[in-house]
């Protein structure tokens, strides 16, 4: 709101200055003009300063590091150009990590956003003690990720885990959650789903509140069922929010670290299972950078991950726009 008002101000000032040619007035005019021009930038400057210090600089510095043989402790050991990237693109462990990341991302994000949509639709209806429910769905998100990972690690434990116990009640053999690829991905995805579903459903709920009520009335008059009006009125009405959550979840999902790291039965020094069956890209970065002290290689991984994030965000965006156009 304020930028608009500020931008109209300069056009008014010169007119007044023309009428008063005195020196004092001119100086005041210069100062006012300066004030109008510079002050807005000063107000937003802290963000850009912080963004430069904590965003742009590390990004560029990481790029610089990735072009060197760089040991974590000893630093620069010489320029190697794109050698780290060349090695990375021929590294089967990297593709394994990328595949795991994508798999866990899909297993967690798709059910998570669908569930969030459903929960939001339920919360959008008149409810007794609605605030309690609405605050309640956010609770899992407030719990520390380390606590979540530890608790779920116990739930999914091989020998004394609750999940295997429940499966046993319905006659399913115990699953060795950490040992096989798919079960481990499911277990980790469950932690992510548990943590973020409530958060996303609150975002959806906020958006649903802004869908014009007349549309529902019109739909009801046309004889639409509740289900039909949900898909034809609510979902199109909150499409920008859906796009936003998809983009945010994608970026979060691609950077998944704490849950799989703490899920490893061989401790925090592990690499995501005995066969790297649930090592994500960020875990691989951690292994290279902080386990083997190869900062150059880790920086290359970081940059590739950054590019993958940007590309997926773009693809998401493009897909979402196409869906809107199609709908």
């Amino acid at each position, binding site marked *: 709101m304020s930028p608009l008002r500020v931008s109209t101000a300069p056009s008014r000032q010169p007119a007044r200055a023309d009428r008063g040619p005195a020196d004092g007035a001119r100086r005041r005019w210069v100062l006012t003009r300066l004030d109008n021009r510079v002050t807005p930038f000063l107000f937003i400057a*802290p963000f850009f300063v*912080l963004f430069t210090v904590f965003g742009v600089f590390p990004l560029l510095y990481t790029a610089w590091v990735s072009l060197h043989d760089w*040991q*974590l*402790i*000893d*630093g620069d050991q010489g320029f190697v150009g794109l050698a780290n990237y060349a090695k990375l693109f021929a590294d089967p462990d990297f593709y394994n990590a990328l595949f795991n990341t994508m798999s866990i991302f899909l297993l967690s994000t798709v059910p998570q956003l669908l569930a969030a949509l459903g929960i939001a639709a339920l919360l959008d209806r008149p409810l007794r003690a609605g605030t309690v429910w609405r605050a309640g769905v956010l609770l899992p998100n407030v719990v520390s990720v380390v606590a979540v990972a*530890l608790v779920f*690690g*116990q739930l999914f*434990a*091989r*020998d*004394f885990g609750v999940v295997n116990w429940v499966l046993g009640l319905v006659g399913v053999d115990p699953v*060795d959650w950490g*040992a096989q690829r798919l079960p481990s991905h499911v277990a980790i995805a469950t932690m992510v789903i548990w943590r973020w579903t409530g958060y996303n459903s609150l975002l959806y709920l906020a958006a649903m509140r802004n869908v014009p009520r007349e549309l529902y009335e019109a739909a009801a008059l046309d004889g639409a069922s509740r289900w039909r009006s949900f898909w034809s009125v609510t979902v199109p009405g909150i499409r920008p929010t859906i796009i936003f959550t998809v983009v945010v979840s994608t970026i979060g999902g691609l950077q998944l670290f704490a849950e799989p790291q703490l899920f490893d*039965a*061989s*401790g*925090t*020094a592990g*690499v995501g*299972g*005995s*066969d790297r069956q649930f090592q994500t890209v960020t875990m691989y970065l951690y292994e290279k950078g*902080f*386990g*083997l*002290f190869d*900062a150059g290689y880790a920086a290359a991984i970081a940059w590739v991950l950054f590019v993958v994030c940007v590309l997926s965000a773009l693809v998401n965006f493009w897909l979402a726009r196409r869906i809107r156009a199609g709908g």
Partner: protein
Amino acid sequence: MTRRRSLWSVLAVTTALAVVLGGCAGGGADSGKIVIKVATFGEFGYEPLFAEYEAQHPNIHLEAQVSDFEAHHKGLATALAGGHGAADVVAVEEQYMPQFMQSKDKFVNLADFGAQDLKSQWSDWKWAQGVSKDGSFVLGLGTDMGGLATCYRRDLFARAGLPTDRAEVARLWPTWEDYARVADRFSAAVPDVKFADSAGSIYTAILNQSEENFFAKADDSFIADHNPNLRRAFDIAGGIAAKGQTARVTTYTQAWNVAVKQGTFATMNCPAWMLEQIRSAGGDANAGKWDVTTVPGNSGSQGGSFLTVPKQGAHPREAYDVAKWLTAPEQQKRIFLQSGSLPSAPAAYKDPAVIGKTDPYFSNAPVGQIYATSADTLRPNYRGTKDSVVRPKFGQALGRVEEGKQTVDQAWAEAVQQARDALK
């Protein structure tokens, strides 16, 4: 969103201020004391000694920083890389010593303060682990060492019809091959309990009894593919794993704590520092169920640390004095009596008070005598500079055997291949 961000910036600014102001206060303009931070991991048992040191040195204030094993060493590496943030005195575990030795210009050469005069305090091998190859650079002063023994559950052995007396148990397994045979007997009698905690820990214990593991002592070359000791360790541990006789829990992890508490396995190779971990994992309910006896193969060391002084500290001389005092035989002895970390100074582990120590939690086992004997007979092993790159590949391979994904031979072949690739 904005609300949250502004809250964060307030928090950030406050924290920054607190750090700056706290730093000033810590510098001691008001107290006039020099603050020496001592960073350790796990249980070193130093805190009770700090008050005494401060009483003897009124100008020094000691501050303890304790974190977990991985976080501690990775934090040290990051602090060295960043140029600040490391404590004044930092403990380094022996497996990390070769890695940090390569960056010794980031550490104070303790020889500059006269550390060479202390050399006779330690066993030769312990001293050698803490200094550069030519002996001129002293990176760290030895603290404890990980003399090996085997801990076993008396009650479970009784159920399996095996002897429970520690001398008789020791006679059951003079070698690791015998240990594997006892595993078979045990598992046949008590199928619902595993014999050992993990294949990895059996394998590590056997490796720690041979002089060379993955790299040749003479020239640091890769010998894992044709070192018979390594293959033997892998085959014995892998064989026990393939038969499903391990509980598949890694020391230090939550699962390991649960397994100790529930008594799901009967034996584990326990370096001296591990007794404390077993005690806290098992709790009072398991007091008197465990006992300690000699390890198959009869000796070996696993773990053991050094105190180093990073260069970035403001008071290297005072830091050295603290490290020197904490690692002196007298203090090592007291630490053993209090918390059970085995001294690396012969004068300390040969002390009658140390040798005479028994542990009620472990059925009054003469832990002092057991560990002192293992310390006297142990042969230290050589770790190559790339040890930390190669070692995990073999541990993961054993994990695949435990999980039933691969046979011992397949796992071995893959580990050797991975190790070769990693060294390229």
